[in-house]
């Protein structure tokens, strides 16, 4: 890994060195250098992550937890040490509060099943926002339809910011048991004022879960400073492997929650009549976990920390400002969302070209953007569009790539007019 000097942002020399850590960035697509602006869907992986996975599989692999032999002890140590790394990353008070899942979607489903179906009662409500990913909508709809728990939607302003006054009024009848809300929108880029949301929720007796899938990629997260109750994210968006995600929850909550998936590793004793559960986190980790992927996630965390969230955030803020300024000059292009506090995601539409056609034309220029509803159909509906094109930025994105995007979009417009 190429360490960079502690700095406020990344210099272009830093960037060149960092990009060399990501083998895929050297690829060509349709004969053109890859310009990968789809990191919000899933980020590329640095060599350190790939190496950690390969190393495990080549030198120290076995199933974890029950093994009394060297390979199993080494694999268990490496797997469990990822819990410490994640706890440190989000400043969790207790490593046992870190539960490994497949992805943020499973983390939210775990809470919806285990917390939602035992600690929430019919007549209570769950609040989400109007800019949620389907992963933070549909699990609550299932809970609503199955258990009679009301689903309330906190509106957003025209700028794409959470309406805190409206949120407060949704909370005011005291029926809300849980506020489950994105920490950063994957469509609008909006950061939600998480600490204020948590304070509001707590004032009215609700717990709060943050969907940190996007937020944790761009900024340091401190669950204690936010006063969160649950925090969830996916490894694959944080430069880590697919197949591994995280749910953090306060010990008191996790202790009180019944298990979700059942099987090996999550039990204390089993008989046909009566089975008792292991302590957290194992209670929530049934079956053989994503061992190699957890170890890869630890490498991803170390990679991000070595660069530093400060430098990453500053870099991405610069990129986002540059993108907003550059795209504003393109005729017929409209950016969606103009939140004050935003991360490195820019969604837009164009007057003469549908998002899918934009994506196809950019692709043939080597530029990868996402087009569609971004798993946020209700938000699309509110915005009055079917789909948008979205460019998203990572620590390896360069200002030149954004210029390439702008040039590409100009060609798209020519093509369609």
């Amino acid at each position, binding site marked *: 890994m190429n360490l960079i000097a502690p700095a406020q942002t990344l210099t272009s020399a830093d960037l060149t060195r960092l990009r060399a850590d990501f083998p895929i960035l050297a690829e060509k697509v349709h004969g*053109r250098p890859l310009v990968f602006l789809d990191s919000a869907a899933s980020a590329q992986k640095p060599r350190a992550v790939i190496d950690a996975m390969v190393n495990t599989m080549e030198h120290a692999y076995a199933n974890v937890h029950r093994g009394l032999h060297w390979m199993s002890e080494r694999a268990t140590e490496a797997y469990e040490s990822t819990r410490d790394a994640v706890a440190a990353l989000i400043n969790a008070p207790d490593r046992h509060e870190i539960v490994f899942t497949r992805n943020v979607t499973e983390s939210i489903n775990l809470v919806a099943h285990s917390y939602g179906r035992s600690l929430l009662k019919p007549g209570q409500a769950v609040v989400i926002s109007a800019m949620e990913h389907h992963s933070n909508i549909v699990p609550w709809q299932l809970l609503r339809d199955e258990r009679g728990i009301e689903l309330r939607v906190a509106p957003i302003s025209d700028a794409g910011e959470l309406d805190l006054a409206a949120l407060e009024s949704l909370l005011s009848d005291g029926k809300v048991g849980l506020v489950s809300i994105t920490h950063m929108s994957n469509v609008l880029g909006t950061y939600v004022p998480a600490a204020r949301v948590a304070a509001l929720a707590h004032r009215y007796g609700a717990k709060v879960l943050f969907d940190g899938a996007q937020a944790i990629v761009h900024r340091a997260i401190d669950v204690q400073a936010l006063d969160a109750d649950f925090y969830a994210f996916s490894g694959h968006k944080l430069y880590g492997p697919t197949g591994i995600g995280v749910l953090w929850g306060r010990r008191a909550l996790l202790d009180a929650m019944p298990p979700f998936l059942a099987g090996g590793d999550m039990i204390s004793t089993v008989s046909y009549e009566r089975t008792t559960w292991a302590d957290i986190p194992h209670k929530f980790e049934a079956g053989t976990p994503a061992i190699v992927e957890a170890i890869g996630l630890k490498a991803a965390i170390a990679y991000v920390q070595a660069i530093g969230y400060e430098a990453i955030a500053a870099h991405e803020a610069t990129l986002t400002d540059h993108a907003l300024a550059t795209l504003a000059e393109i005729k017929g292009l409209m950016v969606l969302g103009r939140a004050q506090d935003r991360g490195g995601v820019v969604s837009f539409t164009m007057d003469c070209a549908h998002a*899918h*056609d934009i994506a*196809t034309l950019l692709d043939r220029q080597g530029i990868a953007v996402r087009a569609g*509803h971004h798993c946020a*159909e209700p938000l699309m509906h509110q915005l009055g569009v*079917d789909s948008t094109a979205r460019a998203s930025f990572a620590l390896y994105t360069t200002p030149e790539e954004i210029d390439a995007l702008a040039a590409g979009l100009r060609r798209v417009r020519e*093509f*369609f007019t």
Partner: protein
Amino acid sequence: MTETIQNDLADLYERTIMERSRKPRHGTRLACFDVSARGDNPMCGDRVEVWVRRDGGRIAEVGFEARGCAISIAAADLMADAAVGLDAAQARSLGERVASLARTGAGEGEDLDPLRPLAGVHSFPSRVKCATLAWHALRAALEGKGEATSE
């Protein structure tokens, strides 16, 4: 854009496609119709709704409303032309041949000729569904199902 890329794209967005997508001839709901259905492509959010008027066993007129990309709109418009005069079995079979044309870029038969502008899609695997969605919806309408998906 390099030469081959431009050729690809030129095939995909060939003249008929561009014209039809900008100004579809059949892009409205029919005032009177016998059957209708909606087609969804859940992966990308494209949607097309078709209305069919019959005359005897044959399709007399097709209208549609689509939200989606240039390909899906043009494909729906071409479908609305090509379907007229066919019975349900013929429409189904033509739809299958259009799908094959979109996947492979080739297909036999004069009746495919007006649909050949869709052949360029075959170089863009993730766009093949755009070309077939309207046909799925047509089939659902003729079979009395209200909905179809293309995946």
